């Protein structure tokens, strides 16, 4: 541990832990407003159709005073979207996916509204459904949004060097195709929002499970055609988000706002799990084709990548998600010749957007699987092969960016993981044991892979059913938004004359522990305990727009802003003390344990609270605003070249598994997660990020999958959408290898997403090590383990039918 810090790097308990363990924390659905009414959605059971007529006559006959809200009530933007405005608040011209909402009924009883919603008769003309993304760009494919030329949402090319020349010069070429699945965020709290019209001309207040209050505000204001100031978004305690409470919540906020203003009463919308899974966006399924040109000495000299992402029915965050993919698709390898194309397309499937990892878990699964296959081909261990090609200081990324000005410690991270797990000897031992029905698995080429299928006649000695495997994966990750957009954040710190302080940043607490991390940073600078800091509630009326809480940027950007505000105040205190104590202008101070003393003269000191009181009496302003703006980054859209991100983090995860070769069950024995997050601010929070991210990554690798039947989701609740339980992962070991950086607070960068992106690839490589079989599709399921192919069911029943 770095002794120069008082608090930073230690395990600090969460500031909000007390209200959370007592059940007193108020999540959106725990908040009620007198006289509030509920909003219930009206949907159409179809995938793709034009809406001919919405007929409310039967509803009005049954209940003449029905309150109906639909697109005709919208005075501003009827469709919204970050890049393309293609997503309606209420559908009025087309249905493009089963989650689409035509109208909302408002009333006192949700149960009554649900049965009334069936009385709305919608006449529609079915259109051919497009559910296969590989068909999206065919000339005769149904057009999802006719206003656009084709179903292409975005195409990012990246061209570096001469890839064909590289392949020609290669000793051998390795080509493989991988696929990843649609997955759900599965935050345990379903979506809820409450819109409250304010008296007079004060506008509207919206309280909800909202990840990005400023984005929600922008959407609501544009839908209402109001100035931003009249829409005030207050974030309730957020019951998990993982990137998932953005677009959906912005739209729900807009629906609630429109209804609340129409009838002048507070409106609550509260989703069931089924509605949440039905309507909310998911992680993009990818189809990834990789072609790698390699020399006998292990040096990769060319890589060609073709990625197709299923954006589903709306463009949402596809342009941003796939941009991160194009930057990082080669993985952390210095390759002279690269040719990458990433495309996102429309289909009638559930739409896809931001989810923890954001366009990185998919390419990492493919690229790290391939790296192991090439290593095996070259008779190298996975780590040896990665050492030959992995980034070092001064390496160039695929976009031609030189890695400098920070610790490029990828190989230190890798070495730490190898030592920590005794990787190499285990890997060799397990690999040598993989024989199956007399076949030596690693000697079987893919062409006769059918021999591996467990035949009806085959069975295995139960003593030999359990096979062990170990596998690793490595990654680099650009921090924060990069060339995606403007990247700056603000923090407000107001010290009171008793030495306590209010703190607020423009980013949001989504459960990740940001409030505590930010408080630690301010407390460290001012030499006080984090307990002295009171974190204010997130409210768009109190703090400037600091962009969304995404891209693992709250420690880096928000932390940078908090440190800036704290430094301003500290400098002000120091100037004041120099005057007050008549010290030389170069004299320095120590702020520690609630006291401020002169460096070199510990006798000359004052308690922080007395200092605050004294400064206040002398008319010193005790509040400050800190602003943190990222350095310049750049990107050429045509060549995919440029400095994509201003700094990077590095990680390596090692998975140890046991595979039951008789049943296909995979047991995760241990995941060792070695990460360089820059500087660890709160050890407890950092460990928490690793545990959670790894577990989600394991779910992505083995169990989680949303499947669709003709565009309709089958897994609408947790009986079918299987997320890991407390019994499914035996051990997770976090290890931090800190690296110096000039950015953020003391170089504290990113951790939340790197923890998730590596796990499925490490598990896939461990299963390969155990069984000798390569798996090309996520999730790796036990059925595929045995049969080497996957089958999808036609229909589903609930419960134990």
């Amino acid at each position, binding site marked *: 541990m770095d002794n120069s810090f008082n608090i930073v790097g230690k395990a600090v308990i969460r500031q909000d832990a007390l209200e959370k*363990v007592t059940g*007193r924390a108020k999540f959106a659905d725990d908040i009620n407003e007198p006289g509030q009414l509920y909003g219930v959605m009206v949907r159409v059971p179809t995938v793709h159709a034009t809406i001919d007529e919405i007929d409310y006559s039967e509803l009005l006959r049954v209940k003449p005073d029905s309150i109906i809200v639909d697109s005709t009530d919208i005075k501003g933007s009827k469709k919204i979207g970050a890049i393309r405005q293609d997503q309606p608040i209420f559908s009025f011209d087309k249905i493009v996916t089963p989650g689409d909402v035509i109208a909302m009924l408002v009333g006192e009883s949700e149960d009554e509204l649900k049965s009334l919603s069936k009385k709305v008769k919608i006449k529609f003309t079915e259109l051919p459904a497009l559910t296969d993304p590989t068909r999206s760009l065919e000339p005769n494919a149904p057009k999802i949004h006719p206003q656009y030329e084709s179903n292409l949402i975005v195409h990012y090319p990246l061209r570096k060097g001469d890839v064909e020349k590289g392949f020609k010069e290669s000793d051998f070429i390795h080509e493989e195709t991988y696929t990843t699945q649609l997955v759900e965020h599965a935050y345990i709290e379903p979506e809820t929002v409450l819109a409250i019209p304010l008296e007079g001309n004060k506008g509207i207040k919206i309280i909800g499970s909202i990840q990005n209050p400023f984005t929600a505000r922008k959407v609501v204001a544009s839908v209402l055609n109001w100035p931003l100031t009249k829409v005030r978004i207050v974030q309730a305690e957020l019951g998990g988000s993982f990137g998932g409470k953005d677009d959906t919540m912005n739209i729900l906020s807009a629906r609630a706002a429109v209804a609340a203003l129409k009838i002048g009463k507070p409106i609550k919308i509260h989703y069931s799990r089924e509605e949440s899974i039905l309507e909310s966006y998911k992680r993009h399924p990818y189809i990834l084709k990789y072609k790698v040109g390699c020399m006998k000495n292990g040096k990769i000299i060319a890589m060609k990548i073709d990625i197709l992402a299923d954006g589903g029915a709306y463009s949402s965050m596809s342009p941003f998600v796939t941009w991160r993919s194009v930057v990082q698709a080669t993985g952390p390898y210095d390759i002279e010749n690269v040719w990458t194309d990433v495309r996102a397309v429309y289909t009638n499937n559930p739409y896809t957007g931001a989810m923890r990892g954001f366009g990185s878990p998919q390419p990492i699964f493919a690229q790290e699987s391939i790296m192991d296959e090439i290593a095996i081909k070259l008779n190298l261990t996975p780590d040896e092969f990665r050492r030959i090609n992995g980034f070092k200081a001064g390496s160039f990324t695929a976009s031609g960016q030189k890695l400098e000005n920070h610790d490029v410690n990828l190989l230190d991270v890798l070495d730490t993981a190898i030592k920590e797990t005794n990787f190499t000897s285990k890997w060799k031992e397990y690999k040598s044991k993989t024989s199956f029905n007399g076949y030596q698995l690693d000697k079987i080429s893919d062409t006769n892979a059918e021999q591996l299928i467990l035949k009806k006649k085959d*069975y295995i000695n139960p003593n030999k059913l359990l096979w062990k495997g170990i596998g690793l994966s490595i990654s680099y990750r650009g921090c924060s938004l990069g060339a995606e957009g403007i990247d700056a954040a603000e923090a407000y710190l107001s010290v009171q004359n008793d030495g306590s302080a209010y703190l607020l940043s423009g980013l949001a607490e989504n459960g*990740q522990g940001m409030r505590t991390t930010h408080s630690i940073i301010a407390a460290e600078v001012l030499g006080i305990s984090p307990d002295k800091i009171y974190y204010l509630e997130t409210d768009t009326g109190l703090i400037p727009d600091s962009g969304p809480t995404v891209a693992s940027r709250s420690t880096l950007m928000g932390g940078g802003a908090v440190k800036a505000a704290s430094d301003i105040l500290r400098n002000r205190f120091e100037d004041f003390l120099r005057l007050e104590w008549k010290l030389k202008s170069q004299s320095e101070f120590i702020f520690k344990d609630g006291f401020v003393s002169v460096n070199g003269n510990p006798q000359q000191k004052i308690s922080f609270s007395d200092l605050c009181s004294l400064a206040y009496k002398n008319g010193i302003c005790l509040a400050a605003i800190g602003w943190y703006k990222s350095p310049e980054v750049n990107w050429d859209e045509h060549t995919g070249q440029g400095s994509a991100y201003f700094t990077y983090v590095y990680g390596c995860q090692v998975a140890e598994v046991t595979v039951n070769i008789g049943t296909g069950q995979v047991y995760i024995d241990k995941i060792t997660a070695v990460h360089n997050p820059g500087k660890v601010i709160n050890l407890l929070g950092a460990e*928490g990020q690793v545990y959670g991210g790894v577990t989600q990554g394991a779910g992505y690798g083995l169990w989680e999958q949303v499947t669709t039947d003709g565009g309709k989701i089958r897994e609408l609740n947790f009986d079918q959408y299987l997320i890991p339980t407390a019994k499914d992962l035996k051990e997770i070991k976090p290890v931090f290898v800190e690296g110096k950086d000039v950015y953020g607070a003391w170089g504290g960068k990113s951790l939340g997403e790197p923890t998730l992106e590596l796990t499925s690839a490490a598990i896939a490589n461990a299963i390969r090590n155990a069984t000798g079989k390569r798996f090309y599709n996520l999730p790796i399921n036990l059925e595929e383990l045995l049969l080497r192919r996957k*089958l999808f069911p036609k229909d589903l029943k609930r419960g134990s039918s």
Partner: protein
Amino acid sequence: MFKTITFICNQKKIEATLHSATTVLDYLRKHQHLTGTKEGCREGDCGACTVLVGTLSGKKVKYQNVNSCLLPIAQAEGKHIVTIEGLNSSDLSIIQQSFVDEGGTQCGFCTPGFIVSLTGYLLSSNNYNLDDAVDSIGGNVCRCTGHTTIKRAVDKIINELSVKNSADSNNLSSLINLGIIPKYFEEIPKQLTEIKKKIISLEYEQRADFLIAGGTDLFVQREDDLLKSNIKFFFGENGADRIWIDGNQCCIDARATVSNFGDSEIIQKYFPEMTNFIRLFGSLPIRNRATIGGNIINASPIGDMTIILLALNSTLHLQNNKATRQVSLKDFFTGYKTLDKKEDEILTKITFDIPKQNNFFNFEKVAKRIHLDIASVNTAMLLTVDDRIITQANISAGGVSPIPLYLSEMRKSLLGKKVSEENISEAIEVALSEISPITDVRGSEEYKTLLLRQLLLAHFYKLSPEIIQAEILL
């Protein structure tokens, strides 16, 4: 179907008139504004709504953790319902404190459910250990912490309590002194005794749209219908006396829960492995509510309990207001979800022969996710071997047929045969010819066939390695 229900909610005695199928979750959140109990899935798969249900047993109250989203308010009658708010006092409980210290809460939405579940564990166990404690939270899911800091918190509590060595779940005041529960729990047994007197006895013959024992599957599938229907509840009061011995028969009250079955000393005596098998059935809060009778009547082709009882060659005792009759469980299922049961008949009792010394019993299950998941394929076997000759064989298989299947052809193939590689292989081939698996969400036809084969082999290997040498399976 409104009913006045009397119970204690935390410290408060409540008399409420409600539709008896109203879930306790809705009652707590909407009527009592106790919002610490969260709604995450409404089907017993997330645990965010976990509450404790305290049942008077003699002079003591026995607590179990239960999913309030699947708990009809009628079942709160005469009980102590404890929510997270009912565990709060001026100081944090040791569980709450440990969650704070170890980072066991992140977003905090699932946290009350975990704390309630663990409190239930500390209230109901006499031998604290990490495995059992983690099993008690097997029905709670957290998406933030990966459960690791939660397990760290649990480990710390278990260690602290074993150092103090004074925790005794039979002694309320010791639990209060240790900071596990608030002081008012002392008053609950007396208060429940007073309420208890008013409980009306249950009448078997009363007609209703729905007759509900546990309702853990029915509330998932048809909650909306239940709220509009005439419902007759059919739950008993005591756990311990629901399983008993009568002559050479083991008898199970149809209302016994899966937990009653697993905790029964009788079952543990004759089937020492049963505790481990039962841990693969749903989660603890589900096992605390799901009944043996319900599992059979629900007729799921993959009901774990039914598969076990089939291999025990159980007999069902059916009753209507005129007569009682017996039917063998293996003949009870006549087709997918159809039963040899008249509409007015009620399953009251299940019986099976107490196993003998030379009996071997085993259960195997494979599910997509190892825990808290419905089986792809499950199977149980009870084998009697006399002098290496198979004299009795009952084998069941789930997930491979429209009904929970009794493998009668396989039985015939094994009877009178010597335990040998050849005979076992032959019997398994016979078994595979009597199944008809279909491709569904839990696996393809081919996969299920392979699984069953593998699991049947596992029976023979696990049950009697001394008889079946590992080599014969090679």
